[in-house]
């Protein structure tokens, strides 16, 4: 019997390039999602969490010190896995695939 080389997992992830917006987003996550795993990789951060990652852009803007809309947040998003939903003022990544 061989082990499954890639069993299904329920975590979601996002890669954000290093920037002021990203630092504010990380500060926000440390407060609102302390169970998220944040891995610094020199020029970008990889962030993973079971089931759900939510970025409330108004809350991140408060930490950034200037307005931040969805488009400007996405400027920093290099990659993700999971199901992404982009809405006004909010970006969510869900493990539920559909």
């Amino acid at each position, binding site marked *: 019997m061989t082990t499954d*080389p*890639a*069993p*299904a*997992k329920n*975590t*979601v*992830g996002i*890669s954000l*390039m290093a920037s002021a917006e990203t630092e504010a987003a990380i500060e926000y996550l440390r407060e609102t999602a302390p169970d998220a795993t944040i891995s610094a*990789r*020199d*020029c*970008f951060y990889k962030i993973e969490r079971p089931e759900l990652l939510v970025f409330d852009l108004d809350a991140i803007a408060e930490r950034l010190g200037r307005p931040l809309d*969805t*488009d*400007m947040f*996405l*400027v*920093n*998003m*290099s*990659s*993700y*896995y*999971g*199901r*992404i*939903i*982009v*809405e*006004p003022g909010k970006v969510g990544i869900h*493990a539920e*695939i*559909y």
Partner: protein
Amino acid sequence: MPKNLIDLHEKAKSYDWQFTYAEQEPKFASKYTMPKKGKDPFRTLVRDYMKMEAEKDDRTHGFLDGCLRMGMAEQVEPRFLEILKVTLPDINNAEFQAVAACGGIISSVQNQELRHGYLAQMLDEIRHAQIQLGLRHYYVKHALDPAGWDLGQKALYQHPGGLVSIGEMYHFHTGDPIDCIIDLNVIIETAFTNMLLVATPQVAVANGDHALATAFLSIQSDESRHMANGYGTLMAVLSDPSNIPHVNAALERHFWHAHKAVDAITGFQAEYGARRRPWAYKNQWQEWIVDDFISGYIRRLEPFGVKPPERLRQAAEDVTWMQHTIAQVMATVWPLNFWRSDTMEPGDYEWFEQQYPGWTSVYGPFWDRYRTMIDPAGGHIPMQDLPALPPFCQVCQLPCVLPRLDQNQFRLVDVGGKKYAACSEGCEWVLRNWPGCYTHRRQFWARYHGWDLADVISDLGYIRPDGQTLIGQPALNLKRMWTIEDIRKLQYEVKDPLHGVNGD
């Protein structure tokens, strides 16, 4: 007028029409059924898209200006820049082919929401090509050795590595448009570009190339939307069960081919272009391909009938060795390259052995011997050590010595009474199932069978502006570089290893 993004997006989708005055005839018919409704998770609108991309360009090009002010090109590890001479045009080729792909998809896919996403993607691909050309312009003007950067695309398309690139990337726009999307958006952009455009920037930073890191991460921010295009298309076609077998066949085929073509070049760049290596390729592959793409995405589509690639385990085993073998081959054929190869030194040996136990016994003797042949005064090149040149695979165009020379899976495959080389069971499977896509491809060695190596290099045009010195060199910082006359003195004749197998 609606102001909310969701309402606006819904309104934009309603501006759709059908041809009434002519029959729409896409270049390639599709065997898939496609529902009229789909999902673009990003809800892309042209107005918002332009704002976002303008910001990205301002940041990326602004950073390149900063690199100029700080003289950063001179601080890049020369070994890293040399391999970029082949890998950056290779990526540029992918962008060019992806532009064509989006045109084909937009004209083929009768689904307005998905078309919106692919319209933005087409503009993205043009943007990526422009950023990469901007990077190449920066390197050709500021890199310490610009030779090779000036030839770029022309050099790539004549090189065996260019044939690997063309062989993979033409699948973006040739054939069933949904198969093309599964290759481009689902396999390449959701899985493999993470290795190339997210993980590799970390290697670039470690080796002083912050310009490349910034440009690649910005490019990949667009790929995120392309992933969503692939997801939206996949979910649309999976709504009809009759499409499921086609989806699984396309996933199997293109996962294997992409693994071969992209891992060869990305693994080679990341480990042999680096002097400081932040990670091992096989570990990154486990993270981005196996854990994120397969476990976090494909496996979660199983309730819809999607199956993970059967050859996943083989691909994962391959990346323990294949990039080392590619580096070995690239160094062996150094006179045919348009970049300078570099020797591997004791510090490299130590890292490789630590990350890939057994590396020293397999590859150490090669690099030991290689270092004895770098001086033109010695009058010997590694190609002369070979009993025969390695045939190239008819499918992936990689040399048939993979995953490593002593474990190679080379086989001759009979298709329609004619024999073709295949590097692996996976490529043989592809060749047998889609012969019409591959059997017409001509091989590099066949083109030059019976030629003197010096004449081959002259024909390729890989010579520096003095008309004598080769662009390709076996090492960096040679006291004297090899010239075309040094090669001519060797009287080395290129022999196609497949010459005569079909009675020709």
